[in-house]
């Protein structure tokens, strides 16, 4: 058999907190763990919402100023400003995600923690948003950007 290769590592920086942008880092992190790749996830700025207990299951998709919405979700900008449109589009998207058997964000984050991936909240963003480790999902740790860069040595890095 082939010789043992050094363990592959993936570092993902998640910087967006909308429902549509929460899934790519989670799906990639999970896929990497499935393939035996080590994963560190760093949540910064709006990305923190993905691992904040009170927000993780209430993420929304923007309907105004979002030109790339799939036709089945498409809502014209002028209609999108009506109160409740974003919530309606988000509910529709959650339903579609569920049909593909992808878990809701909160459950997905827990699943990724269970796979052995490491979850970090960006210290500076947390200070700015007045969040502490207790506000984050259990198992997440607070980390500075410099430390994250240091631990990412030799890893493939994705910024999402």
């Amino acid at each position: 058999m082939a010789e043992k290769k050094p363990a592959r590592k993936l570092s993902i920086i998640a910087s967006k907190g909308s429902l549509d942008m929460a899934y790519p880092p989670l799906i990639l992190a999970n896929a990497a763990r499935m393939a035996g790749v080590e994963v560190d996830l760093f949540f910064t700025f709006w990305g923190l919402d993905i691992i904040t207990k009170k927000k993780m299951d209430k993420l929304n998709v923007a309907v105004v100023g979002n030109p790339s919405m799939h036709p089945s979700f498409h809502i014209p900008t002028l209609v999108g400003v009506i109160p409740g449109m974003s919530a309606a589009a988000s509910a529709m998207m959650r339903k579609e995600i569920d049909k593909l058997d992808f878990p809701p964000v909160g459950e997905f984050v827990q699943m990724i923690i269970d796979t052995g991936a490491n979850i970090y909240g960006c210290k500076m963003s947390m200070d700015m948003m007045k969040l502490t480790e207790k506000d984050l999902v259990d198992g997440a740790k607070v980390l500075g950007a410099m430390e994250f860069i240091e631990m990412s040595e030799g890893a493939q890095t994705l910024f999402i």
Partner: protein
Amino acid sequence: MSVLDNVKFDADGYMEDPNAWSKEIAEAIAKREDVTLTDRSWVVINYARKEYEAKGEAPTLRNITKNTDVDTKELYSLFPGGPGKLAAKVAGLHKPTGCI
């Protein structure tokens, strides 16, 4: 001589013909991949085989954790080094195409 001598594998180490699989082959693949099989591993392997027979492809890990009593944490401890690849390899199935 090994039970694997007459088994054909693809370039990534998955069996070419899942129907040629047997429990002895599973044990030998596991040994080659450095995985120790326990009764709990067999819960996963047997379920994966059952799903393959019903649907013609390897189940996703989410399918496995939803439909057996093996949860995500245990699945990763049973197949350290990536259950997505290893469970399918040991069960003699093709590389899983699911993303979850």
